[in-house]
């Protein structure tokens, strides 16, 4: 845990990031308690998001929502108009060096298509807590692509609470890359409220050193014939601790729905603590829910084989981590996100390997990643004004 000096006021968010059903208590993995800064907003005018976002259930829960809305300097509201397909990516930029707290609401109107990119990035060794609260409403037949990157340092704590409410026929594609922070607490709640909704949620995570990852995924399937695919894929090295709670809630009335959850984790370190609590809640007969988990470890024969081809023991273990960064660089292609992934790769794998990674994939970083981001923010603000 980061230490705070006596002058800095803090508040404790007790037992947040909880799953809908707290069954397997013996794992002691039902929640996380976080100590976070409590600042008073001095003179800034804070515009709350439109009330309709209040009904959106979030992954980390109300306490975190209340804290974020009390701490965020401002809120960002973006509306993507009905049928609009080419809206610029909506970027939520969380500078964890500065302990930024972001509150964002996106309304994707009927039949529209939107990309939301949430990037928590930082490189400093100063203790900081950053946060993002992202609530999204996806109307009938609309499509949402949500990309989340957490790529900061061991000195930082980051909270990310996501809530998505999806109407009939909406499709949600969520990709999360949790590549490092001292503490990453992430909650995602996707509610398929209408019929024929689709959600694909993929989480890639890396935990190393003494890092803590606390993940709470909730998919509520209330409409008929919904589909949910939830996959987590991770690597835990050294003494990293991870708790994952993944719930698929097949609600009464959601007949014909199918939900799948599967996690694959590679454990490589004697101090690793790896806890997973998958839950399928089933209040309806005509539904299917499955979950599976594979816990693997790097076998000595695998390391021997890699060493026989010229890699030292460390380089061999890094190969698995490298593959995770490969995926992140390919999929998180928005410039600010890619830059954050690259900077994190530099820290984790070293500058040369990181550059090599980019070259191998044939990728280049946009030199003006930061500025492009500023443009995107400008777009967001402009839309906000027109929507108000």
């Amino acid at each position, binding site marked *: 845990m980061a230490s705070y000096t006596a002058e800095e006021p803090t508040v404790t968010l007790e037992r947040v990031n909880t799953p809908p059903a707290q069954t397997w208590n013996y794992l002691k993995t039902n929640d996380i308690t976080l100590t976070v800064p409590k600042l008073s907003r001095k003179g800034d005018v804070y515009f709350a998001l439109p009330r309709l976002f209040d009904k959106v259930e979030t992954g980390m829960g109300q306490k975190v929502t209340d804290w974020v809305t009390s701490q965020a300097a401002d809120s960002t509201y973006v509306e993507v108009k009905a049928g609009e397909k080419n809206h610029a990516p909506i970027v939520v930029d969380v500078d964890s060096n500065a302990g930024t707290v972001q509150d964002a609401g996106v309304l994707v109107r009927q039949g529209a298509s939107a990309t939301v990119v949430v990037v928590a990035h930082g490189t400093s060794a100063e203790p900081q807590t950053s946060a993002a609260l992202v609530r999204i409403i996806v109307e009938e037949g609309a499509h949402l692509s949500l990309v989340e990157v957490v790529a900061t340092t061991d000195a930082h704590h980051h909270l990310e609470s996501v809530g998505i409410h999806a109407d009939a026929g909406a499709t949600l594609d969520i990709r999360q890359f949790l590549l490092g922070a001292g503490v990453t607490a992430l909650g995602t709640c996707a509610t398929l409220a209408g019929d024929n909704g689709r959600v694909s949620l993929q989480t890639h995570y890396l935990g190393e050193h003494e890092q803590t990852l606390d993940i709470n995924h909730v998919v509520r399937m209330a409409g008929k014939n919904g589909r949910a695919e939830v996959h987590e894929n991770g690597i835990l090295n050294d003494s990293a601790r991870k708790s994952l709670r993944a719930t698929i809630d097949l609600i009464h009335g959601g007949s014909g729905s199918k939900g799948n959850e599967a996690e694959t984790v590679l454990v490589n370190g004697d101090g690793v603590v790896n806890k997973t609590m998958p839950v399928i809640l089933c209040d309806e007969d005509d539904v299917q829910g499955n979950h599976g988990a594979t816990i693997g470890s790097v076998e000595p024969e695998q390391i021997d*084989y890699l*060493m*026989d081809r*010229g890699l030292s023991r460390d*380089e061999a273990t890094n*190969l698995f981590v490298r*593959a995770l960064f490969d995926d992140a660089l390919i999929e998180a292609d928005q410039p600010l996100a890619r830059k954050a992934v690259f900077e994190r790769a530099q820290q984790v794998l070293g500058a040369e390997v990181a550059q*090599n990674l980019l070259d191998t994939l*044939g990728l280049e970083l946009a030199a003006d990643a930061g500025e492009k981001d500023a443009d995107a923010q400008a777009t967001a603000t402009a839309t906000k004004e027109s929507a108000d």
Partner: protein
Amino acid sequence: MSQLLNISGLSAGTEEKPILHDMNLSVGAGETHVLMGPNGAGKSTLGHVIMGDPVYKVSGGTITFDGQDITDKTPDKRSLAGIFLSYQAPVEVPGVPLYSFLRTITQMRPELKMTARKFRQRVGEICDQLDMGQGFLTRELNVGFSGGEKKKVEMLQLLLLKPKLAILDETDSGLDVDALSVVSRGIEAYRRECDGALLMITHNTRILEKLDVDRTHVMVKGRLVAEGPASLIDDIDQNGFARFEQDGAAAQKAEA
């Protein structure tokens, strides 16, 4: 002439069980040697001990390579020095894409460092040479590959890394006719392109027909019992190992 590989008085085994006994074997730069012997003789063990596999402990003797004593070196150092062991049973490594693995092992070597574009091109060429689809490159290393495909991935690495010495442990076994000729051509390409030395472990003398064999070694029960010219291979082909097995038993007795 000074030898590339020099094994002198080598004894090795697992913690519990001695497997190799007082072995002497030398391979000169660019030479092709064949190592034959019945199942369980210790051929694969020798290959792994030369490579520095930590499963085996050396209890006596030395291994020198390219003028350096490597007896106590870790496998990665031996690999970088120019030794390559093609596994009889290549290991599956989930979570590591073949392409990024190949790129990493190439960039490790100052003499092979190349731009990403050149690398892509080179890997493409080798894939063509080995009649391998490029689709393999995005798959996880050896995971779910057929026996023959795994052997081709070993050849792909051999051609990419151009080692000074390649120890091929039954790289030809379990291959269909077409794959066998592809692999033979791969071995010829390796010999041609970098004049690398070969230590071929095999039960199948067909693969040797196209190679100019300098020396043949016969191993029985963890001991080298005979050494001779290429013609020794034909002798074994016709008469089997019986005669050597008697010699091996005699040597064992003499020592006891």
